[in-house]
């Protein structure tokens, strides 16, 4: 019987059961003069997906009902108190109590915890995938994402910043700095397709709409060798598959953005589709303010299970940010429209020759772009990073010892051009070309390409009942360098005592694409960062990473305890300087410890995390802290269930400020060659245009002030008719901590020399999600 047929069968059973119940209890119902309605939804607690065919059992009446395909149930009951139980195979049953009042509707929501259920030799698990050990990384599901206060809507990237070991450069950025690594050292991928510039403006919003995400997995270090090309970590965002039963929709309305999500069956296969658009511009206009920025993005995925052995899926993602700027001065009245975004196209075919192995073929295009050419003489840029990859992968899991092998062919093509003249753009960004990379020359043109052929193999091997060995090997051959770079990793998991695991891993990783962004890594000002392809085999960045972790699931009161230590010995890290040579490849190391106490059961949930970290680089003369070094970070997340499906959450973080290069003096530079011409044909040369120039101190020997911030959020749910409504209220940075950042060290005569700017403000937002 097919899945849909099975669903119909259960539906029919449910309908039959309902009819039977109605018949059996009709006499008692009619006998009661007072009656009310009980209605609600049943969810998977981890994924937040609604569960169909869950049984709702009304104790002390003997009545029961099943949820429909949308996880919804309703039943008419005589007024009075009830014990209601929800149960479905693969989940722990949950009992709740309610009182039905005359002529009123009461709502109940059941969040069922996935739980393996043993039925003889068969084990059934509800949506409980093999978890990434929390000591080595994090796996977040939609149900957990929504409990972290964020600006406006749950954000799969910003949610990670609430976790120990994951940092950001400031409150506005959503670039991931993982275990002492730079932001370009962590792969961010959507269904295995890398995204090179994932931010919308700044990073207040991530480039990925959370509605399409089924789960996200972040490897903090020593990620599997089936991935590759990054020194620190890997974030895998996986998208949902469409619902095969019926069309479902979700609409979200917020103060600053709206989005629509659809999923459902097609004549052949299923689809999901989402679209999102901000309207800062329109809201600001209503208040007579000018904030012309907007973005939109869209995603479409089609899945087709051809037969039991063959599955095909294809997807497209497109995002575009637009920041129209109206010029004054020479170009008065003209509009300049910098725009940037991503295009991802992905197709994957999976063939299962038997029940324990799969062969998959994947082809994708990832393109990141930024462009503007409205007023060429004022400012023109046209940048593109293009990654075209095809891969073949074989997976085999004959029973606890999975083996994985594959080959990948990647073509990287980068094309940069900018020519930014003296225009109003400099009123917005003092040195606009540095949006792209540190001390970027202007004008600039560069084309580069690389072919990378990679082969990889990974394995899990259980050495004993308590010890698991995991290993991986990857070789990447760079066509232009004519050199093979071998990466490898080895990990041992040892179960020390009940529910407690000790893990040790070592890995060497290479990186072929790198950025030069030390002066101004904040993505608020650098929405498009250029990546460079290594052109010299001696300068290819690589890192030897050691990670040791300890994880015990039940320390006390259902608290999970995680302890993690790491050391990374790093080579050929791109660095920039205020003097020559401007760009250098340096060695460095990162080391640190993360501690986390986590509780996700009960009325009060959340975690307490502390990270100690040190990230150091060394040049020919001295060692210095990297720009993303933070010594101490504390993160506290608390969630409190106020009442049925209403939750109050609070997130507080405190971190040591990041290093920067201070300006220690200034001098008069300039003395331009500009000629001074008069109509009397009198020429005089040597007209001075003296301007202050900053004298930088030793690199990164100052630190900005420590950062701290409190965010609170209130999320709830209620049923309106049969529509599931989820309002939210969030306030970021409740006590308005400025959390200064250093923007630049450019000085001008007569100007107030303010070097610090606040990176966070009180940001309240309110919105509502509607599912139908």
């Amino acid at each position, binding site marked *: 019987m097919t899945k849909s047929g099975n669903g119909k069968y259960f539906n029919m059973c449910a309908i039959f059961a309902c009819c039977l119940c109605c018949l059996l209890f009709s006499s008692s119902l009619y006998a009661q003069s007072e009656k009310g309605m009980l209605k609600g939804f049943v969810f998977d607690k981890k994924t937040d997906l609604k569960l169909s065919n869950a049984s709702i059992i009304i104790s002390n009446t003997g009545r029961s009902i099943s949820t429909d395909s949308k996880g919804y149930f309703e039943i008419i009951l005589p007024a009075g108190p009830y014990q209601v139980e929800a149960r479905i195979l693969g989940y722990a049953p949950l009992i709740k109590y309610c009182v039905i009042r005359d002529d009123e509707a009461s709502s109940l929501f059941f969040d069922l915890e996935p739980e393996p259920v043993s039925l003889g030799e068969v084990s059934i698990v509800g949506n409980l995938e093999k978890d990434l050990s929390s000591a080595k990384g994090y796996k977040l599901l939609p149900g957990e994402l929504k409990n972290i206060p964020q600006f406006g809507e749950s954000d799969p990237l910003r949610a990670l910043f609430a976790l120990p070991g994951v940092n950001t450069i400031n409150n506005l950025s959503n670039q991931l700095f993982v275990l002492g690594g730079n932001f370009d050292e962590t792969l961010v991928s959507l269904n295995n397709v890398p995204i090179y510039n994932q931010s919308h403006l700044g990073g207040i919003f991530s480039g990925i709409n959370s509605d399409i995400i089924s789960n996200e997995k972040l490897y903090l270090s020593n990620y599997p060798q089936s991935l590759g090309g990054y020194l620190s970590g890997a974030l895998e965002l996986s998208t949902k598959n469409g619902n095969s039963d019926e069309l479902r929709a979700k609409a979200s309305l917020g103060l600053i953005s709206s989005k629509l999500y659809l999923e459902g069956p097609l004549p052949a296969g299923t689809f999901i589709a989402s679209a999102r658009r901000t309207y800062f511009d329109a809201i600001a206009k209503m208040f007579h303010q000018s904030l012309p920025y907007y973005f939109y993005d869209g995603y479409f995925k089609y899945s087709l299970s051809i037969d039991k052995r063959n599955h095909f899926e294809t997807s497209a993602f497109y995002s575009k940010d637009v920041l129209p700027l109206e010029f004054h001065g020479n170009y008065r009245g003209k509009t300049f429209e910098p725009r940037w975004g991503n295009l991802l196209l992905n197709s994957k075919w999976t063939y299962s020759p038997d029940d324990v192995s799969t062969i998959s073929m994947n082809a994708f295009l990832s393109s990141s772009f930024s462009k503007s050419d409205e007023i060429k003489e004022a400012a023109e840029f046209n940048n593109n990073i293009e990654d075209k990859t095809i891969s073949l992968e074989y997976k085999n899991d004959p029973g606890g010892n999975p083996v994985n092998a594959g080959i990948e062919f990647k073509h990287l093509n980068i094309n940069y051009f900018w*020519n930014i003249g003296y225009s109003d753009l400099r009123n917005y960004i003092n040195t606009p070309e540095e949006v792209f990379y540190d001390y970027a020359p202007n004008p600039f043109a560069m084309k580069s390409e690389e072919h990378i052929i990679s082969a990889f193999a990974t394995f899990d091997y259980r050495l004993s009942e308590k010890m698991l060995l995991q290993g991986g090997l990857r070789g990447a051959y760079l066509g232009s360098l004519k050199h093979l770079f071998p990466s490898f990793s080895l990990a041992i998991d040892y179960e020390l005592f009940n529910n407690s695991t000790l893990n040790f891993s070592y890995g060497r990783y290479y990186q072929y694409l790198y950025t030069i962004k030390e002066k101004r890594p904040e993505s608020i000002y650098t929405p498009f960062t250029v990546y460079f392809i290594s052109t010299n085999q001696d300068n290819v960045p690589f890192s030897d990473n050691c990670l040791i972790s*300890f994880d015990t699931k039940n320390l006390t009161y259902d608290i999970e305890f995680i302890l993690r230590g790491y050391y990374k010995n790093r080579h050929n890290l791109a660095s920039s300087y*205020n003097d020559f040579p401007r760009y250098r490849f340096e060695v460095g190391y990162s*080391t640190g410890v993360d501690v986390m106490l986590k509780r996700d059961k009960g009325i009060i949930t959340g975690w307490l995390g502390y990270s100690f970290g*040190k990230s150091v680089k060394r040049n020919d003369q001295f060692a210095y802290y990297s720009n993303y070094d933070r010594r101490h970070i504390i993160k506290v997340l608390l969630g409190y269930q106020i009442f049925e499906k209403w939750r109050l959450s609070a997130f507080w973080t405190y971190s040591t400020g990041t290093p920067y290069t201070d300006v220690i003096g200034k001098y008069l*530079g300039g003395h331009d060659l500009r000629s001074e011409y008069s109509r009397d044909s009198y020429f005089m040369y040597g007209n001075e245009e003296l301007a202050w120039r900053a004298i930088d101190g030793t690199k990164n020997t100052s630190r900005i002030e420590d950062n701290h911030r409190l965010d609170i959020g209130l999320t709830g749910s209620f049923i309106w008719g049969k529509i599931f409504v989820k309002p939210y209220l969030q306030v970021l940075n409740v006590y308005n901590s400025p959390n200064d950042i250093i923007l630049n060290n450019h000085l001008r005569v007569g100007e107030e020399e303010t070097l610090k700017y606040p990176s966070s403000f009180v940001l309240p937002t309110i919105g509502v999600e509607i599912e139908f």
Partner: protein
Amino acid sequence: MNSRAKIYFFFIIIIASGAGCDNPAEQPGVVKNISVAGLLNADTLEQNIKVFSTSSIGDNRFHVITDASVRVSDSASWTEEFPLNASEDGIASYSSGKNTFSPGHSYFLEVKTKLGTAYGSTRLPGDFNITSHPETDTIYIPNNSFIEVELKWTRSNGAFGYIIEQDNIRKFEYSGDTLSGGSSGSSFTFSNTIKIGVSKNLIGNTIINKTVITVIAFDKNYYDHHFNYSNSAGLNGAYGYFGSGVVKRVTFFIK
């Protein structure tokens, strides 16, 4: 010691070892105390070299060093003293009233002050000529119209780039391989040709019937300081730069 305690002890050791790694550098003070704004121009009579002391961040006054000894010499034994002269803009500079600097030659700067001595060197770009349009050439433009004129010049030996001005306004247009636009708001080109737009300009009701095009060849020190953020270009012991340029211009008529 039980196994849990051993694990905790192990991690304490890791924390301690991490904390003990080498400490990054300390912040020193400003190491150079002189700044020089020096430019040699083969086409002008007066050469100016300004000498300042560096300033602290909050101090916006110009600290001209007035008791410096400034000398420029060539690779042979010739030396020119630059005495201090008051300037109309109130910023005194060290000036030479005679132009003895030739295109294509190298010159060396020595600035002695109580704060220390700075040295510099520059090689003037070689001589060059604007080949089109020639001086006094006439360009015919229809009324209320605009045409593109291609300007060419012979390459200056040793020049790093060229600045183009039309009636004292720098050009930002580009064509083909010719790029312009500078990080400091100035423009330049590496090429020896540029297309510029020419139109009939009016001042009041009077048609301006001529236009002046200036091409300035500059050396690498000038480029490094103005376009490549260098804080010390062509200098040793001082901030600023010691650069050079050669200027050519052509006037043509518009009808």
